[in-house]
């Protein structure tokens, strides 16, 4: 199988994840994700770009909860990309991640159907950001209107800022300098973000351990998110 050599990637240690949902909250604040309320969210219209898949193992009282944060896996061969008729989702050559261009999206929702990870969410309405949440809107991120698709971007605004800062200072981006919101807030440091093309980076080191695996790897999507499987 052809291995894609990309740059940015993520390692999530499932042994460390305790399902606290801090990453989901941070992601929502960073990326101007509206809250849709109980009824909408339970009908499958929550807008979270990431979710914590919780599974139970065993029978009560000998029971254990497993948590797995899942967001867009930034596939190297992304199934969502070729099916879009208007190139609204396509591959960024610089960062080697999947971009979603809101202004170009016409809302066919085909990308979401073809995503094996159900990572995409759709703006069913013009969601509101009620006061005081409108004061918290991130100026670096577009606020999306109704009828467009969206998904995790690996906080591309932070990647670009990190790269530009480094460029202005005449150096390369250092390992750990760029952090998406989820990795930044993770209290157990379960989420690590970094550069896979650098074999010395933390993500490369972690991904080379025996615990590393990717979601639905057999589909050939070449995900850019590596999970360290739970041994506990």
């Amino acid at each position: 199988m052809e291995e894609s050599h990309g740059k940015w990637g993520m390692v999530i240690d499932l042994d460390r994840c305790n399902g606290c949902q801090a990453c989901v909250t941070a992601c929502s604040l960073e990326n101007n994700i509206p809250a849709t309320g109980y009824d909408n969210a339970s009908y499958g219209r929550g807008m979270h770009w990431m979710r914590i898949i919780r599974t139970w193992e065993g029978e009560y009282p000998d029971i254990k909860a497993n948590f797995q944060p899942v967001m867009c896996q930034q596939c190297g061969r992304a199934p969502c990309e070729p099916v879009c008729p208007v190139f609204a989702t396509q591959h960024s050559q610089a960062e080697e991640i999947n971009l979603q261009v809101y202004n170009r999206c016409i809302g066919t929702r085909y990308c979401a159907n073809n995503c094996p990870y159900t990572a995409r969410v759709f703006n069913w309405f013009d969601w509101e950001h009620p006061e005081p949440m409108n004061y918290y809107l991130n100026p670096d991120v577009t606020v999306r209107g109704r009828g467009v698709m969206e998904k995790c971007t690996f906080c591309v605004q932070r990647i670009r800022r990190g790269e530009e800062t480094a460029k202005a200072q005449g150096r390369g981006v250092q390992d750990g300098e760029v952090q998406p919101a989820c990795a930044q807030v993770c209290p157990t440091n379960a989420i690590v973000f970094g550069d896979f093309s650098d074999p010395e980076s933390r993500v490369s080191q972690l991904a080379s351990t025996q615990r590393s695996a990717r979601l639905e790897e057999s589909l050939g999507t070449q995900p850019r998110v590596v999970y360290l499987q739970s041994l506990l």
Partner: protein
Amino acid sequence: MSESAHETAAHLALFDEVDHAADAIVRLREIGIYERDLEVISGLPFSHKILGRPEKRTYVPLVGVFGALVGFATGAAFNFGTPLLYPMRVGGQALLPIPPGLLIMFEATMLGLLVFSFVGVLIENGFPFFRRKEYHPDIANGKIAIVFHCLPHQESLAYAAMRQLGAEKVSRAETIVL
């Protein structure tokens, strides 16, 4: 050099039966009327063999094939040309993929073939045509008309022949606004 009758006024003979019309064509030819000065108008597509006439030439298939080529070229340009103007990589697929290209080129070829064949019919027939032309409204109701041009000395011979073969009407062709 043969005399041309085409400039003279047209005559129209109306028949009930295609057999009589076919016989009438033979008689008109015997009188000395050229094939090109004859025309059969009918409400049914009688083949040239039934009427005993030379086969009419049609360029519709040729126009259609030309349209198919135009369509094929357009499809090829869409698939192998336009992506080069603004290269976008999707899903690890080639920039100029062949299987989807075959689809686009197939559809474009078919569309070209169909549109050009249709337009070919219009152009070859001179459609739309809304001015006066020799016609009789009964043709659409099952009559068969022979429209012919002849020189003045052939006229009476032709009229007699037509009547003898059962033409229900033979006269100077009326022109009707179509």
